[in-house]
């Protein structure tokens, strides 16, 4: 046993463990170093340093009454619990807690798909259900709905949505918390609460109308620490009849501004799924001369980038578009997109992509017939969970900073330049450069990615990554860009940047936390929200 809970001696800790064993059975409580190894964040840049956060124990209840019992025991001993669903939040802290000595509450045994309705298009699941589990449930029953999966698909819909994770299909489903509807929560005092229509006994619309009546506290449980979600509903897309892709390229750097405006229109009109932006010029980054241009301090001029594109015979930007629906609708929407964009941007070109009825065959999923090189993650785009992305995860993993920025070409150029310059002092891959494209994962915002790798055997490299992470959070905030999700070791840094009116939002969260969980039983520090007991 390496660490103890805060303010607790070894004897009291043993006593508490005994009570916890009584609640769940001896086989489902772990406190040895060996057993707790998998609860470390193996992607952490502070791996094996004093900054790494460790659990004192982990416990896996079988059902909601056991969760309630654990919460009450934790309350009696004032021990922080750190709830995880499947614990696959890698890049954002994995299963490791905010506070050293927390007891990880592993909800993997609450793994029932409670309901999937393919006429009203929703699911109700427990936290230990993975995307694979939900997908299998749907496939085995031949249900006509599509899951919107993150990549990889081993996480849980509840865990991912509570982290405000994303997927790759239509806009209203990609924002996983936005697509949620109704939750059941064990509160810090052990009481069970349901939100929205779930609060009305006898209601049959828990997964259809999320608000119920009065204030809706559901948002407090996303990246929050006000309770433990034990059931959650999600809207599901009716299985589309047909899928179609198309690629549009534009020749000049500045054309990106108009391209983004057109795609915004298509997306906000629900005409297309995830738009996957890219720059064909990225393939020139191996050329030292082009690399120097694309990473030039202060950013390159449009003219220099256009000249480089012309010399290479490449367009400056491209966007992969995806269409879901009846075949005729997908065809009409693609035709409309081509006509709209090609008539407005001189030199823009369009290439028809794949198109086929759904569900896709294995060959279609593997994308062997696509007429152009695509950035679409086909499994994700078609709601099929995958683990294939792990083939491209280098070293011992990575940490992630994904700043939110406006959906405009100008904002993209500014972030490329500002964050590219800010990170020049670090010997890391140039994540931000003149070819960096935005990610269109969330429904109404762009993101960009900074995800440097970590190496367990190279603490000097990890220290560089750690410094770079802290700097990029701070510099981004100076320009109005905030991170959307962070590992516990960065949550205070990120929360600090959301500081309007002398941190009014954080003070409000703290007031709520003090009211419902003054001893910090549920994940103190998560989302940057600390109860009075832990505030410095």
């Amino acid at each position, binding site marked *: 046993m390496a660490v103890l809970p805060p303010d607790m001696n070894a004897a009291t800790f043993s006593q508490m463990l005994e009570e916890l064993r009584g609640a769940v059975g001896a086989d489902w409580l772990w406190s040895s170093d060996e057993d707790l190894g998998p609860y470390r964040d193996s992607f952490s840049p502070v791996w094996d340093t004093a900054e790494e956060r460790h659990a004192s124990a982990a416990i896996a209840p079988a059902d909601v009454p056991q969760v309630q019992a654990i919460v009450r025991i934790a309350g009696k001993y004032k021990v922080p619990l750190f709830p995880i669903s499947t614990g696959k939040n890698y890049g954002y802290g994995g299963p490791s807690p905010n506070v050293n000595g927390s007891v990880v509450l592993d909800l993997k045994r609450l793994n029932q798909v409670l309901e999937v309705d393919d006429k009203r298009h929703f699911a109700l699941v427990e936290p230990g259900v993975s995307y*694979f589990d939900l997908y*299998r449930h749907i496939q085995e029953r031949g249900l006509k709905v599509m899951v919107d999966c993150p990549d*990889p698909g081993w996480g849980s819909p509840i865990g991912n949505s509570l982290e405000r994770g994303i997927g790759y299909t239509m806009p209203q489903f990609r924002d996983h918390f936005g697509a949620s509807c109704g939750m059941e929560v064990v509160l810090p005092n052990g009481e069970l609460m349901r939100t929205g229509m779930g609060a009305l006994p006898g209601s049959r619309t828990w997964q259809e109308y999320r608000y119920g009546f009065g204030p809706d506290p559901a948002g407090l449980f996303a990246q929050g620490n006000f309770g433990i979600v034990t059931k959650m509903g999600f809207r599901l897309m009716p299985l589309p009849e047909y899928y179609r892709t198309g690629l549009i390229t534009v020749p000049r750097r500045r054309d990106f501004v108009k391209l983004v405006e057109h795609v915004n229109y298509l997306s906000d009109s629900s005409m297309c799924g995830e738009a996957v932006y890219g720059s064909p010029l990225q393939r020139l980054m191996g050329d030292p001369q082009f690399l120097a241009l694309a990473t030039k301090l202060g950013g390159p001029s449009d003219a220099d980038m256009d000249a480089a594109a012309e010399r290479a015979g490449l367009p400056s930007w491209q966007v992969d578009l995806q269409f879901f629906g009846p075949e005729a609708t997908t065809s009409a929407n693609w035709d409309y997109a081509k006509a709209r964009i090609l008539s407005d941007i001189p030199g823009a070109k369009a290439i028809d992509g794949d198109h086929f009825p759904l569900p896709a065959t294995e060959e279609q999923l593997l994308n062997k017939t696509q007429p152009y090189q695509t950035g679409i993650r086909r499994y994700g785009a078609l709601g099929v969970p995958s683990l294939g992305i*792990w*083939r491209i995860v*280098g*070293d011992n993993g990575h940490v992630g900073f994904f700043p939110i920025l406006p959906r405009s070409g100008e904002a993209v150029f500014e972030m490329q330049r500002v964050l590219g310059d800010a990170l020049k002092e670090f010997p890391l891959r140039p994540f931000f450069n003149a070819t960096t494209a935005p990610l269109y994962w969330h429904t109404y915002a762009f993101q960009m990615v900074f995800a440097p*790798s970590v190496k367990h055997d190279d603490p000097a490299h990890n220290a560089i990554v750690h410094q770079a992470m802290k700097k990029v959070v701070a510099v981004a905030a100076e320009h109005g860009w905030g991170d959307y999700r962070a590992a516990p070791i960065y949550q205070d840094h990120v929360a600090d940047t959301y500081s309007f009116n002398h941190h009014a939002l954080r003070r409000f969260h703290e007031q709520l936390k003090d009211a419902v969980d003054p001893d910090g039983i549920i994940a103190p520090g998560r989302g940057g929200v600390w109860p009075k007991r832990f505030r410095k």
Partner: protein
Amino acid sequence: MTPRMGDSGGGPMVDRREMLTWGIVAPVLASGPYGALAAVPEGLDALVVDSRLADAGLSALAARRTYTIDGDVTALWYNTLDTLWRKPGFVLGGITGTDALFVLERLAFDCGRRAVSRTELRPADRFGVAAASWVIAPVHPSVVKA
């Protein structure tokens, strides 16, 4: 339901006794760097081989009772392990990249299993991926065979 993921390339399962007389595979495992796999007291129920590791000796293992992956464990997980690992027993050996092992270890952990042995066969390449042989076995009472 027919899984729409790629076939993992594995054959039908065999009982453990049969595994001990795994004619083609046993000599290969017993030799050289794979000795740890042959040393598992109860024998292996199956073996995962990563086709990215172009080892001539491994080609002999491309028989039934082996699952061939190309680094991506999706099909192996969805079509095979997700079901098998819910039941007690099943000792799995592997000769894979450490990236694939990372994924399998995490999935195994959820199912009360752990990598009980691992041997580095080749140091990390420029992407940080090493080659390893390993054995994942049940350790939690809920899945350890009586």
